[in-house]
């Protein structure tokens, strides 16, 4: 259970890390960034497997197991919906920081706060 909660924490750190990378180009900015991208995928998959296996172990009765597995599967869809919206805003903010036009929404954070 600890691991199951640790990995989302690490994933959130990844978001912060990549946002920093995208805004500040001096620290690390080349194609070797693809390695941490792989790590992002690794965490996502690990949580998927661990989470559902954990449910399998924790619920002994088969009907409860089925119920819990089907009910928990909503997490992924909810995550994607939230991420699609969040992604638009993250993109707009990072576009503005980098001086690129073409973002669909406007960044809600005042520009004085970003650098």
């Amino acid at each position, binding site marked *: 259970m600890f691991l199951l909660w640790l990995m989302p924490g690490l994933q959130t750190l990844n978001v912060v890390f990549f946002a920093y990378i995208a805004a500040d180009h001096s620290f690390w900015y080349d194609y070797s960034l693809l390695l941490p991208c792989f790590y992002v995928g690794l965490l996502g998959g690990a949580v998927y497997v661990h989470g559902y296996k954990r449910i399998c172990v924790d619920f002994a009765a088969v009907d409860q197991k089925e119920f819990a597995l089907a009910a928990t599967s909503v997490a992924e869809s909810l995550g994607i919906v939230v991420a699609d919206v969040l992604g638009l805003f*993250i993109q707009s903010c990072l576009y503005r920081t980098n001086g690129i036009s073409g973002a669909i929404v406007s960044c809600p954070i005042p520009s004085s706060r970003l650098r």
Partner: protein
Amino acid sequence: LKKKNYRRKKSMQRFKNYFDFCRSSFFRVRQLVWDWAMPASATYTPIDAEVDAVAAAAATTTTDELVNNHTEGVADEEVDDHHGVFSSSTAPPSTWKMGFAFWFLGLLNNSSYVIMIASAKTISEGGTALVFLANILPSMMIKLTAPYWFDYVSYQTRMTVAFSLMVLSFGLVASLSSGPTAATAAGTASSSSLSSNTLLQLLGVAMGSAQTGIGEASLLAAAGKCDASFHNNGHSEGVCITAFSSGTGLAGVFGFLWKFLLNEWMRFSMALTLWLAQSLAVAYILIFWYYLNHHLEVPLIPTFVTAADSSEESQPLELTTYNDNNSSGASEMGNHPTNDNPKSFSDNPDIPWADEEGRQEEANHNMNNMLMPAQINIRNNQHKKPVHEMTVLERATFVSTLWPYIIPLFVVYAAEYSLQAGTWTAIGFPVSSERARDDFYEYSNWMVRTVFIRHWAFHA
């Protein structure tokens, strides 16, 4: 004379030993062969008949249906026969076979979603966001409501519905997409106002999304059930769930490869690419009927259905007689609508591979309400009453107790996809070049999609 007698006795003994050895090894080999060939010989006909029956229902030719149902009935008898032989020997469940089935089902189930995402630009040039929405919202709604209605619908029905949705979805999008060049022209025209063509295509995408939702929630539950039976048997743990998630992981690569290889590399039109994807749908339902339906038939339905039935005290009997009808009177079956067919497979009392403990558990479950309410598996009832007896409010409460699992999954996916949809679109070398940004976006997404490797890594 004594010596002679002794020698004869000894040779007799030796012969007997040899004979015993031969006999036992013969049985062992026969069991191995059956284990290997059992699903092939016993279930191939019913599946065909089933799929044919589905096709026949679509074509609404009653004569065909009759014939199909007839073969089905015959095949069912065959199955029963095999079961009878089989249950007497304690053949171990073939974990790798179930793993294989779940891996493929995971792959096929999610690849429709990925193919739709990959072809989002072709579907609606101006409104890829709309395509993404249509691709996720129906799936989310189904998974959100799943706890309240899944136990009233059998796995077989759900999977048949998912299959039909998959076929309709590919068909609708394919028949309305008219080649890459024309599509872009239509797309630019529709970017200002959505044409009915695009709307229909979006409906197709939504159907695909619904299919993914139903399929994933159902198959995950089925995988949990599958693992439960293996776990009791002392076999490797979590094979089915791991295989399923590995399949869904590979679907990310597979779907994009499908679109890329056929549409861009082979230069097929988008329509043809999607028409060819129908074969995925066929493989999807075939694998389900071939492996899961047969192997999991009793564990698949009963926990709620039989338990719920036993409280009503009418349905189990009805089901058995129904099954009898099915295997003996094929002509009667012809009058029934085909959507009853899934049930006819579901009520076979012999699970060929169920171990003693698992069967005991099943039996306990089935008999809980009818015969001996005192003899309840304590482990099972630590939590609360059976799911099927829960009211809507109790179900909602149960779902809310699942937060320790839901939140990590939610956070991980929200973070991962917001990286994909947001942060990585703003990275490029140099960032001012749109091409460079597109490149990095493409590569980073491929990196994430290779995640299927990790599933096997974590399995070990």
